[in-house]
């Protein structure tokens, strides 16, 4: 299946992916309106950053997902055809059981009454907005082998993305 992969050497921690994701999952799909929505739209991708490193984290759509067994509402399933781990948001009772077991801490809960959310790989988009929004090519959407090839190419080329050298 096509997944989002990360070349974390290219991640600047700029959080463009977070903004793109939140806009995509807003009701208006427009930045200027999304920031005024109540409740605020939640980004399904989360950039972890410290002094030296940064990396965006989101649902890995695991082959054997821990969250499926944890959900007390039967609201999470692994779709055998698409490979997606699917959250049925209307079933969520905010029990935090999925949060308890996700090794990537990729599940978020918003304000009271809002269901748990995570990356859905934006099925209706050719390329997920987070990937499109990444200015450095740190995010990649495709098959594992394609990503592997890309990484080898980048390794051969030897130098980092030009953007990383600014300043």
């Amino acid at each position, binding site marked *: 299946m096509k997944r989002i992969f990360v070349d974390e050497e290219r991640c600047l921690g700029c959080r463009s992916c977070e903004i793109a994701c939140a806009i995509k999952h807003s009701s208006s799909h427009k930045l200027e309106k999304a920031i005024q929505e109540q409740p605020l739209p939640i980004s399904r991708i989360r950039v972890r950053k410290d002094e030296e490193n*940064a990396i965006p984290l989101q649902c890995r759509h695991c082959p054997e997902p821990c969250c499926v067994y*944890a959900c*007390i*509402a039967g609201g999470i399933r692994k779709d055998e055809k698409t490979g997606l781990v699917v959250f049925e948001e209307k079933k969520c009772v905010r029990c935090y*059981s999925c949060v308890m*077991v996700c090794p*990537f*801490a990729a599940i978020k809960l918003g304000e009271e009454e809002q269901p748990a959310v995570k990356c859905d790989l934006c099925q209706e988009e050719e390329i997920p907005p987070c990937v499109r929004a990444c200015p450095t090519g740190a995010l990649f959407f495709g098959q594992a082998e394609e990503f592997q090839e890309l990484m080898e190419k980048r390794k051969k080329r030897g130098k980092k993305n030009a953007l990383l050298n600014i300043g």
Partner: protein
Amino acid sequence: MHYLILGNCAAGLNGIEGIRSIDKKGEITLISAEPYPAYARCLITNFLIGTHSEEDLYLREKDFYQKNGVKVLQGKKAVKIFPQEKKVEIDDGKKIPYDALLIATGASPKTLRVKGEEKEGVFGFRTLEDARQIAKRAEKAEKALVFGGGLIGLKAGYALKKKGLAVEVIVKSPRILSRVVEENSSRLIARWLQEKGIKIRTGLAPREILGDKEMKGVILDNGEEVKAQIAIVGKGVSPNLSFAEESGINIHWGIVVDNYLRTNFQEIFAAGDVAETKDLVTGEHTINALWLAAQEQGRTAGINMAGGEKVYPGSIGANAAEFFGLPFISMGCVQARNGEIIKEKKAEKKFVYRRLVFKDGRLTGAVLVGEVEAAGIYMALIRKKDRVENLADELLEGWVDYGKFEKILEGKKGFRETITPDGRLIKLP
């Protein structure tokens, strides 16, 4: 091949799916005591509050059993197992033969053992029917008592509070959630619940339920009389295994199973609240009567019944819940019992508490109140049993820097790997 499954909840349901992941053709018969398709037992709280209907609780599509070729005997119970004959007798007198048997009969609420317990208005909180009866009675009730400070009792109390009743939790031990979290979290959660209007009284137990046919109140063991129209008994559960008692199947706390969820009989398996498995953290045999454990065990047992060889790494005591917007999660060993090192972080005014428990350099337990989003990282570390002593402080801060986390996951660059429920590292396909 004929598979027989006793029980139609988390373990039984996942048993079906486990079997079908390997054997598409074998016959499956399932015996279900309750007259519904498998439902989300934990969500009877939401049913009681009124946000969920019966149908909302169903765990699978309507045609699930039919699609999976499962013959369901509804409203029936096993009364005796004959392992030598490979047959199970059910309560209508019939004997059903099997080639492989899954015991997934779950557990039932323990009783109070006090005078007057049989009166109307005294409930366990386990089944949809319990919730239905409580909801009905709550319409004309003003006050409910909860006996026991465990999660089940608190959830029932929470639901009744949401329905507008006065709720008083009566606990014999000095604190609530004594088997789930340690003292600090317990105190914090108790304070939160009291601020939201649930009264908590410790060191007390009921002596007698008062009333005629219907309960009208209770006498506590200090002699005090409390008026109430509903009492919830939340004193824990005991496994449903009376039908197996004289069968020769190994029984200790529950039905004893090995790492394959197999009993001492080759073709008999057990999973869920009735099964006694190895605890992943302590290594001791125990029953972790939890939804997560029941689902994983059911799945694993099903696979092994169908000829697979899936090892179950052991269950982990782990709970997550949210009351009035305050979440908390606990997992593994939460107390210092034997040389454990405790790291903790408090912001009690904000109802935030975090506690990590390390043993021999490995994370063996965690409790999080208020801010819980990183919990799964702790769970992964407990399951993988990696040495993380050098990361203790960072872990306590709530997150591990990704680079170090990656090392923990032994993942290659780009997070191309993930870990499975049984703690194995696998490549993302």
